[in-house]
């Protein structure tokens, strides 16, 4: 486990790496802007580190949650053409996706 970042520690390169992980093709101007802004935000949110949390369990949901299962009964789903009508590209009754294999494949 690492300690929270110090102010300004989120560098431009780190922001670029995170943007890549999140599949965001950010511009150089955005990197300059976001690096400064996110360093300030990170500095503010790092305040959570001040809390004494020994023996404190984390809360994922504020209300008690149990696994919910329904009867295993087949129900009609949305018609295929209705769903595909909202897609950016469809072909032969399926979503058409961009190329997924490299040239050498």
């Amino acid at each position: 486990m690492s300690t929270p970042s110090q102010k300004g520690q989120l560098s431009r390169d780190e922001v670029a790496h995170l943007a890549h992980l999140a599949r965001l093709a950010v511009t150089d101007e955005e990197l300059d802007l976001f690096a400064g802004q996110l360093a300030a935000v990170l500095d503010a949110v790092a305040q959570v580190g001040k809390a004494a949390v020994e023996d404190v369990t984390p809360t994922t949901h504020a209300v008690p949650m149990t696994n919910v299962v329904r009867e295993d009964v087949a129900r009609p789903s949305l018609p295929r053409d209705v769903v595909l009508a909202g897609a950016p590209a469809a072909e032969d009754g399926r979503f058409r996706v961009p190329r997924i294999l490299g040239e050498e494949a």
Partner: protein
Amino acid sequence: MSAINSDVTSMNVDELQAALADGATSVDITRAYLDRIEAEDGELRAYLHVDPEAALARAAEIDAAGDRSGLAGVPVALKDVVVTEGVPTTSGSKILEGWKPPYDATVAARLKAAGTVLLGKTNMDEFAMGSSTENSAYGVTRNPWDPERIPGGSSGGSSAAVAGGLAPWAIGTDTGGSIRQPAALTGLVGHKPTYGSVSRFGLIAFSSSLDQAGPMARTVLDAALLHEAIGGHDPLDSTSIDAPLPVLVECARRGADGDLSGLRVGVVRELGGDGHADGYEDGVLESFRAGVARLESMGAEVREVSCPAFDLALAAYYLIAPSEASSNLARFDGVRYGLRVGDDGARDLDEVMALTREAGFGPEVKRRIILGTYALSSGYYEAYYGQAQKVRTLISRDFSAAYDDVDVLVSPTTPTVAFPLGARVDDPIAMYAADLCTLPASLAGVPAISVPSGLSDGLPVGFQIMAPALADDRCYRVAAALEAALTNDRGDRGFLDQLAARQGSAS
């Protein structure tokens, strides 16, 4: 605009119901609102989508069916985060421009089944991320009290529409304050229900452990009516609570009688009290204290309560919400719906995805996705996301301890009145501070309502009442008592009469 139109659009919903029962038609009422939208929305820009022909056809259908009960024939506006079958839904984002959902959200379906007429979809901060509606990809919405100021956010289209008389009421959603804060800044009543008590099915997800839909209305009674219409268990939402909704309308009516004897009210020190008033405007605190004194005058026992972990609510929220958002927004990949950019046959899936998301998301959404990705990444998870979840537990514990001694907790809804457009767009931290008072109830999942307590510099101030989980009825009871008392003190018909007077004197 004819006199009758102006009468209709300044009516509360219970008055519209009475008019409908008395022979008024839904077509006439709907047309009155559409006329107002036509005349005013060029400046306010509360709506992203209005289809007058569809609304009038729907109203005519309700009129022809002859049902004069309940909400039949009453118009409603929906925040654009609520998916509506065949009606464009964008969540304020370019990435969903032109998308027509193939199904209705449960909230939309229930309102449809109740016979309401959809006026349109309202503007919002992109994916509900923001406190001013300035993060919408489709332009800013203005505050009817002062067009140079924000209407709050993220449900700012809904708040501007209702305050401006462009809808009798509207649905908003609240993740960290996005119903209560815009309601406060436009002089409306806005309620964030107990987490799990209103279905999230068909709300475009921002932060799934926090998102709740709720009512934004002219009065406490109207808010209760709308809440009862949308609330209750839904098997399509796995976090939906399988328990009956408390009776809310009746509670609002009884609350208006003004007897609060025996009610124990806790004033939260950490939200504007001694030593915690930095960033709070004097006018807001004065209005809040006057509201507390008014509760006391109706028999409530008031004491100060300390909730130390609330000081860390902002830090915890701005880790938890972006983390969940970074995961939720992964679904916008340019494959199944919405925008696709750069698919020229040469670029692969990852490149197309990155170009699509770059073009489709605005700056605040990108910032939060990057922040959330960071907080969830290996090596930082425990220090940020894990720690924030533990702070969330501490905040819930503070609520539980407080509710051992008091029935409701109160605070200002926002530290300031509506700020000028553009004032905080370049400073995320300043923008986030607008949610300071609303975040604790969001993180703990407890219900909270904002009701107007007065004006500061001529702009509305909101008074927040928080209650234990599933005790939403307490929020409505206390809010109704305060609303009735202050209306009586002013000697008008309701808080928005002051907006009408302001507009009358300005023109």
